[in-house]
C-alpha cells in the first residue's frame, strides 16, 4: 500500500536526537528515522526495545553444537565404529574442535539469515528511499501523513522546521 510520508532532513545527528525527544514528548507518532551511520543513543531516544537478534544467535549456536556432537557420536558409536590409534570409540576430546566450528558456523549463518529476513532485506528488494542523501550526510525524521488532516500536516511541518530540520518534504512511497 502506498504511504504518504512527511519527512524532515537534518544536517547533524545531535539536532536530530533532540528533535526525536521533543517529538516523543509531544506524543507525535514517528514513523521511522533514517541515518547514514549508526547514531549512538538513537535507540534510546526513539525508545526502541533491545534487539533480540543475539538470542537467535544463541539458539542457532546451541543447535549447531548438538548437531555436530551428536552426529559424530552416532557415527563413531552406532553407525560405523572404528578404533583410531587405540582410543575409545566415543573419544570426546577429539570431537571438541569440530563441535566448536559447527557451533560458530550455525550461529553466524543463522543470525545473518535472520537479520536479513526480519529487516526485509534481500537481493533485488526495491528500497523505499525517501532521499538519496540519507546514505550520505542527511538525517531523516519521518511521519506517516497518509491519513492526516491539513491541520495535522501543518503541525508536523511546523514541528520539523522548528526543531532544526534544514528541509521538509512529502513523498509517496
Amino acid at each position, binding site marked *: 500500500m502506498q504511504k504518504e510520508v512527511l519527512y524532515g532532513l537534518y544536517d547533524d545527528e545531535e539536532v536530530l536526537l533532540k528533535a526525536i525527544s521533543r517529538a516523543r514528548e509531544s506524543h507525535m507518532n514517528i514513523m521511522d528515522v533514517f541515518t547514514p551511520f549508526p547514531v*549512538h543513543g538513537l535507540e534510546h531516544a526513539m525508545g526502541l526495545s533491545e534487539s533480540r537478534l543475539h538470542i537467535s544467535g544463541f539458539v542457532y549456536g546451541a543447535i549447531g553444537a548438538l548437531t555436530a556432537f551428536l552426529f559424530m557420536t552416532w557415527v563413531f558409536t552406532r553407525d560405523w565404529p572404528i578404533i583410531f590409534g587405540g582410543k575409545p570409540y566415543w573419544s570426546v576430546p577429539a570431537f571438541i574442535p569440530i563441535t566448536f566450528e559447527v557451533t560458530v558456523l550455525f550461529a553466524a549463518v543463522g543470525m545473518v539469515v535472520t537479520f536479513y529476513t526480519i529487516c526485509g532485506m534481500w537481493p533485488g528488494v526495491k528500497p523505499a528511499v525517501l532521499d538519496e542523501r540519507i546514505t550520505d550526510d542527511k538525517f531523516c525524521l519521518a511521519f506517516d501523513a497518509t491519513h492526516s488532516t491539513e491541520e495535522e500536516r501543518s503541525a508536523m511541518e511546523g514541528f520539523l522546521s522548528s526543531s532544526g530540520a534544514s528541509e521538509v518534504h512529502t513523498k509517496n512511497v
Partner: protein
Amino acid sequence: MSAPVSAIRDPLIEGGKTYHDITEDICSPTEKTPNLAWIIAFIISASALAFYVFCVAWTVWQGIGSWNLNRTINWGWDITNFVWWVGIGHAGTLISAILLLFRQKWRTGVNRAAEAMTIFAVMCAGQFPLIHMGRLWLAFFIFPYPNTRGPLWVNFNSPLLWDVFAISTYFTVSLLFWYTGLVPDLATVRDRARGLRKKIYNFVSFGWTGAAKHWQRWESLSLVLAGLATPLVLSVHTIVSFDFATSVIPGWHTTIFPPYFVAGAIFSGFAMVQTLMVITRKVLNLQEYITLEHIESMNKVILLTGTMVGVAYLTELFIAWYSGYIYEQFAFYNRVLGPYYWSYIGMMSCNVLSPQIFWFRKMRRSIFVTFIMSIFVNIGMWFERFVIISSTLARDYLPTSWSYYTPTWVEIGLFIGTLGLFFTLYLVFTRLAPVVAVAEVKSILKTAGDQYVGNGAQAQAGTVEQKEVH
C-alpha cells in the same frame, strides 16, 4: 556527542572532513576509470593468475609427480604456502572482531580492506590442500555426506579434518561479517549512482535504507559476529598447528605450537595489511583516513607479535635442549645448522631481529620503513613455515631416507599464481566497493576527526569535549 573525547589521542581522520566529504572521498574511486598504475598492476596479477591455472592444469594432468615431493618429504611448498596464506588471513578478522570488542576506533580506517584481504588470503590458502590431494575432482570426499560406500564417514578424530571444518567455517563467517558490514556502504554507492550501475548496486545492497531499527540490529549482529569470530580466529590457526602438533615427528610434537602459530598468524597478517594499505592509501588518495596513526598502531602490533614469535623460537630451542631427548635435540640442531640453515637465518632475521626497529617511534611512522618491513615479515613468515615443514621432514628417523628438497617450476608457479589470484581479487575489490568503511568512519568523526580532537582542533572542539557521557 555522547562518547568521551580524549584530548591526548591523535586524530584518526584528518583534513577537517564533513560527512559528505567522507562519502565523496571514499566512494569516488569506485566511480572513476582506473588509472594506469591500476591497469598495469591488474595485468601483472591477472597474468600470474593465468599461470596459476596453467600450473594447476599441469599438476592435474601430469599428477603430483610433477612436484618434487617424495616419500620422505611429503609436504613441501604446497603446505608451506597453505599455512602462510592462512596466517595472512588472520589479520582481517582480528582487526574487525577483536578490535571491535576492545573498542579500538582506529580499526574503522582499515577494517574493510583487511577483511577483504582475509577472505582473499583464505581463498588462496584453500587451494593448496585441494591441489595437494592430487585427484582434485574427488575433493568432496572430505565432507561427511551419506555416500554409497557404506556410508563410510570421514575421520572426525583427525586434525586434517578439523582443518576442513575450521577453514571453511572461518571463510564463511569472515565473508558474512565482511559483507554485512559492506551493505550500508554499497547502499551509499547505490544512492550516488544512475542507470545500470544503480540497478546493480541496488541488487547487492539488499534494499538497505538506513532505518533506525535496521541499524540497531546491524550493530547487534556485528557485535555478536565479532564475539563469535574472536575465538574462531584463534581456533583456526590453533587447528592448523594441530596438523603438526598431534603428529609424532620430533620438532612438530610440541605443545607450544598453538599460541606460537596464532601469534605468527597475526604477525604475518598485519604485515600483509601494511603492504596493501601503504599502497592503497597512496593510490586511492586516502591518507586522511588511513593515517600515520593507523600505520603506527599496526606497527606496534607487528612489534609485539614479532617478539612473541621470537620468544617461541627461543623457547623451542631451550625445551629441545632441556628435554634431554636426543631426537628432539637433533631436530632443532638440524633446523639451525642443518642443510636448510639458510631458511632458519632468513626466519630469525626477518621475524625476530628486523621488527625490533619498531621500538623507535620515528621508524613506526615512516612509510618507507613500514613498507620494507612488511615485505621482510612476509618473507620471514614464509621461511618459518618452510623451516618447520621441510627441514624437519628432510631429516627423519631413518638416515637412509634422508633427502633434500627443492621445488619444481610447477610448485613455484603455484605459489606465484596464488599471489596473482590474491592481488587480482584485491584490485577488483578496490574498484567495486568502498575500501574504507564509510558509515563506520562517519560514526567516529566527532570523536576522532582532527577538527574535534588533537592539537589542531578548532574552537568548536571545546563544546564537544564538554558534552557529558551517558
